[in-house]
């Protein structure tokens, strides 16, 4: 590891004044330290933002918005009572990510900024456009079973690894940013950039800019939401495919739907076509299957990752049917046409959010 200098400002919250051209922020360190060890990141200076006053979770009752400070640990956010009750998809997505030890270190801002897990990105001996622009992409013809089928370009097919970001996308969260050029905010959908011609640029942040908070509207949709993650083992693995889903059903008709995908796209991916396939119709098994089909719209599989297209279909359909089978808000009436039944709940696997226990604490989806 290259040697570096270290500074830890506590106040004022203007850490960019500490940042030179060669410096990087560090929060929990769970991604950056890893990348420093394998040589992908080699900052000359670390600015530790970990003690800045950006670690609060506040409910704005006037606008029904949850404002989450960028330094809130993933574990604390997942366990927050308001998140568990009113934004279950967020809690579930967080608890489906990494391990308890990592979630205690990992912060909200760091999670959104984490780099891809593409093996070639981490291997300095291999060409990788994301790591070294214009060096080529070893994954195109190489090992790409786990790579993206949506949002890819001829330059990069790496997936975005975050679970949290997928849930935030489904919830239409906004990212608050501050930096040398003053504060700004934008929808999370705009924050992560598709690879296109410049896969080395992953977000809209410019050097010195800092995520300060994320704002999440607390809606009826958000309260009726779910996260399903399919991995190569039962826990502690990145997603092969995941879906964050939310439904608003009234009088047997889907009034609103949100579907976002993880593990299959180069950015957290909003499946608008799948949402459109549901709205105005009944929340039926058939409709959920059609939504699953629609979610694959635009998918371009490579030689070895065609299974992801089928996974998208099934994960979306199953996430929706599981959600539809859970308690719906009191205003809802049951679906009329072929009611969806969802997957049977095996004892102790926590399919439905249970009170008094962390949602998603045991996924058990594919044991």
């Amino acid at each position, binding site marked *: 590891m290259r040697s570096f200098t270290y500074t*830890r400002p506590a106040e004022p919250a203007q850490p960019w004044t500490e940042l030179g051209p060669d410096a990087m922020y560090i929060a929990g360190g*769970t991604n950056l330290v890893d990348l420093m060890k394998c040589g992908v990141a080699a900052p000359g200076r670390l600015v530790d933002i970990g003690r800045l006053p950006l670690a609060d979770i506040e409910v704005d009752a006037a606008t029904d918005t949850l404002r989450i400070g960028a330094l809130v640990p993933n574990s604390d956010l997942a366990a927050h009572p308001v998140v568990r009750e009113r934004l279950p998809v967020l809690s579930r997505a967080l608890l489906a990510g990494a*391990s308890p030890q990592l979630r*205690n*270190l990992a912060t909200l801002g760091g999670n959104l900024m984490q780099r891809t897990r593409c093996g070639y990105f981490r291997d300095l001996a291999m060409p990788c456009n994301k790591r070294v622009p214009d060096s080529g992409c070893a994954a195109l013809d190489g090992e790409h079973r786990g790579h993206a089928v949506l949002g890819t370009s001829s330059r990069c097919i790496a997936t975005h690894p975050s679970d949290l970001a997928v849930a935030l996308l489904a919830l239409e969260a906004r990212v608050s940013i501050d930096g040398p050029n003053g504060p700004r905010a934008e929808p999370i959908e705009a924050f992560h950039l598709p690879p296109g011609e410049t896969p080395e640029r992953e977000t809209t942040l410019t050097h010195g800019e800092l995520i300060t908070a994320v704002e999440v509207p607390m809606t009826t949709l958000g309260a009726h939401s779910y996260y399903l993650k399919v991995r190569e083992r039962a826990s502690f693995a990145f997603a092969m495919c995941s879906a964050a889903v939310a439904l608003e059903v009234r009088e047997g008709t889907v009034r609103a739907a949100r579907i976002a995908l993880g593990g299959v796209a180069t950015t957290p991916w909003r499946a608008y076509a799948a949402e459109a396939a549901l709205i105005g119709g009944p929340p039926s098994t058939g409709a959920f299957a059609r939504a699953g089909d629609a979610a694959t719209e635009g998918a371009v599989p490579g030689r070895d990752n065609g299974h992801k297209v089928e996974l998208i279909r099934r994960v979306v359909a199953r996430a929706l049917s599981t959600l539809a089978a859970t308690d719906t808000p009191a205003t809802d009436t049951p679906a009329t046409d072929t009611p969806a039944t969802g997957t049977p709940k095996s004892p102790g696997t926590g399919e439905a959010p249970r009170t008094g226990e962390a949602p998603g604490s045991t996924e058990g989806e594919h044991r």
Partner: protein
Amino acid sequence: MRETLGLTGPKKGCDLGQCGACTVLVDGRRITSCLTFALMHGGREVTTIEGLGGDPEGDLHPVQQAFVDHDAFQCGFCTPGQIMSAVALLAEGHAGDDDEIREWMSGNLCRCAAYPNIVAAITAAAGR
């Protein structure tokens, strides 16, 4: 911790956050110590397996004792991390049933696959 302080309880397993052998508590919360710099935790209390039982000549911590009683290890390399994680798991209240224990211990790998006995030890330490 290992080389400067001589505390060799926390192990360097993967060095990538993937195995949990390096697990320690910082202000009572479990973390993977391999992915964070000591400097970042100035002023905080770090507990390694060495500090768990209190007096080094005294009794084992109840979770340590439960691991011995249930033969919850073979080579022992992962064990300090397993025990630190288990102590935190109990404090967090995640020992409800076997599935819950497995999920909340998923950050600790055991290459000897002592998993059934690890779950049994934690169950016993939880008083179930």
